[in-house]
């Protein structure tokens, strides 16, 4: 039984949002009430929960986090400096609240704020699908509090000209950021979505994000999430996808920032012939904890899932990969592969790898593998023997280790941006060890 005094701040925030909830659709209000009750019943996950064995959220309990919906209507002067210098359409979230006033209105797509979208039948219809997924208490918290979200609809057979770049900016000390993004991809629709999480220096805030996507028949989505939160921040995010017949998903998670981060990727194959690729790169320094969890449910036949998760860990950082794959009895001709590779740059860094395959069908191709290693000293010597400084050589080799993940980013400008952030991070790591 969780300690109520520690959860009281969250109950208070929920109470404060009551006037806003009154403007929402009935079903949404009921859903939020249920979720809040469930969160308060369970409290935060603890290390006694198997799924949270390595990621300790104790620091979150009892912290007086705040959220201020009114702030979403005040002026925001950082807009220009935060816009990515890329050929994209930009959507802004500030402290967890969607800011339509400063966001672009991309052509051919419908972008609606959540309070308004809540009344549309399309939104209700989309949300129904996500009941299939298991919920943990953090996700319950997002369902309860994630009111300032956005609903994005890409109509049938529409191909987005430019990627949609969603900036999640946090600058409120003690801010409780609960962004929510719901994406519906119509039949044969194609889109690239980038989520970029960042925050003001030294601000201690808590991002708890939820992105839910529905891919109708033959839709193709490329998703890239960049997590460069401030080192004082906590970050939790879930990315979910329902994949119907012949749909294709590529989701890349890049975890560089925050003091503690957990990214969950959940995929449900609800129709045959769908494919997904889930990849991630974590780069840890200091005492960072970077945790990735995936759950892929092969509920339909002839679907393929490919997972590649890499960690580069320096200092006393910790990288965790837990990958669950379930191949159901009827899901014949399934293809499911999981790989986790870890590069430890210091003797204090730690990697934990837990691939979990549960196969109930008999005609399937499944594999999993995990490797934990250090930089190859012969390679370091080879580069040094050509005049390259030892630190630079180690940086080059660590970058090379990550190359396989970055190659999955199709957009050149974005790839450059990610590469730049990774190099900065590796430079700090090199100075630390």
């Amino acid at each position, binding site marked *: 039984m969780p300690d109520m005094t520690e959860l009281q701040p969250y109950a208070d925030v929920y109470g404060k949002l009551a006037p806003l909830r009154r403007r929402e659709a009935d079903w949404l209000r009921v859903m939020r009430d249920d979720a809040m009750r469930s969160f308060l019943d369970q409290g935060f996950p603890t290390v006694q929960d198997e799924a949270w064995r390595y990621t300790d959220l104790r620091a979150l309990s009892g912290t007086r986090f705040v959220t201020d919906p009114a702030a979403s209507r005040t002026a925001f002067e950082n807009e220009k400096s935060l816009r990515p210098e890329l050929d994209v359409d930009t959507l802004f979230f500030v402290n967890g609240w969607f800011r339509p006033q400063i966001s672009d209105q991309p052509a051919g797509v419908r972008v609606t704020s959540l309070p308004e979208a809540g009344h549309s039948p399309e939104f209700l219809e989309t949300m129904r699908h996500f009941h299939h997924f298991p919920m943990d208490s953090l996700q319950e918290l997002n369902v309860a509090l994630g009111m300032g979200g956005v609903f994005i609809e890409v109509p049938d057979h529409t191909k987005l000209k430019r990627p949609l770049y969603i900036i999640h900016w946090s600058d409120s000390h003690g801010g409780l950021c609960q962004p929510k993004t719901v994406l519906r991809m119509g039949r044969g629709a194609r889109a690239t979505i980038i989520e970029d999480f960042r925050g003001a220096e030294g601000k201690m805030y808590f991002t708890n994000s939820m992105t839910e996507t529905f891919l109708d028949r033959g839709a193709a989505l490329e998703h890239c999430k960049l997590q460069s939160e401030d080192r004082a921040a906590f970050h939790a995010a879930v990315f979910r996808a329902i994949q119907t017949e012949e749909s294709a998903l590529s989701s890349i998670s890049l975890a560089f920032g925050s003091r503690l981060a957990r990214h969950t990727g959940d995929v449900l194959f609800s129709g045959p012939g769908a494919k997904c690729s889930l990849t991630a790169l974590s780069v840890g320094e200091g005492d960072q904890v970077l945790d990735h969890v995936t759950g892929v449910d092969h509920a339909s036949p002839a679907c393929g899932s490919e997972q590649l998760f890499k960690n580069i860990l320096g200092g006393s950082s910790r990288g965790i990969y837990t990958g669950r794959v379930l191949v159901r009895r009827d899901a014949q001709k399934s293809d499911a592969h999981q790989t986790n590779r870890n590069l430890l740059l210091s003797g204090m860094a730690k990697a934990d790898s837990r691939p979990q395959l549960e196969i109930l069908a008999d005609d399937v191709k499944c594999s999993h593998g995990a490797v934990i290693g250090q930089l*190859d*000293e*012969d*390679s370091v*010597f*080879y*580069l*040094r*023997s*050509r*005049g*390259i*400084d*030892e630190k*630079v*050589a180690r940086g*080059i*080799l660590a*970058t*090379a*280790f*990550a*190359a*396989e993940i970055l190659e999955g980013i199709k957009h050149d400008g974005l790839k450059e941006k990610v590469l730049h952030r990774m190099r900065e991070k590796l430079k700090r790591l090199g100075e630390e060890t």
Partner: protein
Amino acid sequence: MLQIKNLRVSIEGKEILKGIDLAVKAGEVHAIMGPNGSGKSTLTRVLAGHPSCEVTEGSVTYEGRNLLELPVEERARAGVFLAFQYPIDIPGVNNSYFLRSALNEVRKARGLEELDAMDFLTILKSGMKIVEMNESFLTRSVNEGFSGGEKKRNEILQMAVLEPKLALLDETDSGLDIDALRVVSNGVNLMRSPDRAMILVTHYQRLLNYITPDHVHVLMGGKIVLSGDKDLALHLEEKGYEWVNPDRAQ
């Protein structure tokens, strides 16, 4: 250029080199021959600064400096180059990016400006002509998926681009077919110059049909037991290493 005096080297506690003396002048090509396990590769590796080589005694002076005190990369910047017997694959590192980074480090140390992409390409292309390499090598990862011969050619290309003063070639001929051997030797011969010295380590005399050394040394049991001119190599080819007086090899 290079003075090696009574050099003793151990690897993992086992003594491999047991007192080497060798003097190499600018412009000279020395061949080091010897049976397997005699310490030939260790000699080139200790000069390049491989961390596994522990120097227990002796000295190495290179252009008036104590070579053994310099870190690996400083040696390279001072003009020491080791062509590896087994070049390392580095997946994910582009070959031309690697070469350019290396060249710019070496140039910086020589007080020259860093090269931009265009100037670098000019240098690179002339190097590639020497080793008859096609441009597809540049976009590939360093040595990844290269055949044995391609890897060795890549080593010679690096040598041509970096223009070392002292080139150490460790069994550059091993695993090469006749064509590749011709290309590699041709590259080495083109690099010969009055201000560059080379040390070739080889098991077989075959390489010396293509590259004529000024001096030949026989290394056995961790010591140089015999030195002579190019004819010594022919004797060895004819009579085998047993011909060398085993007393001298101890």
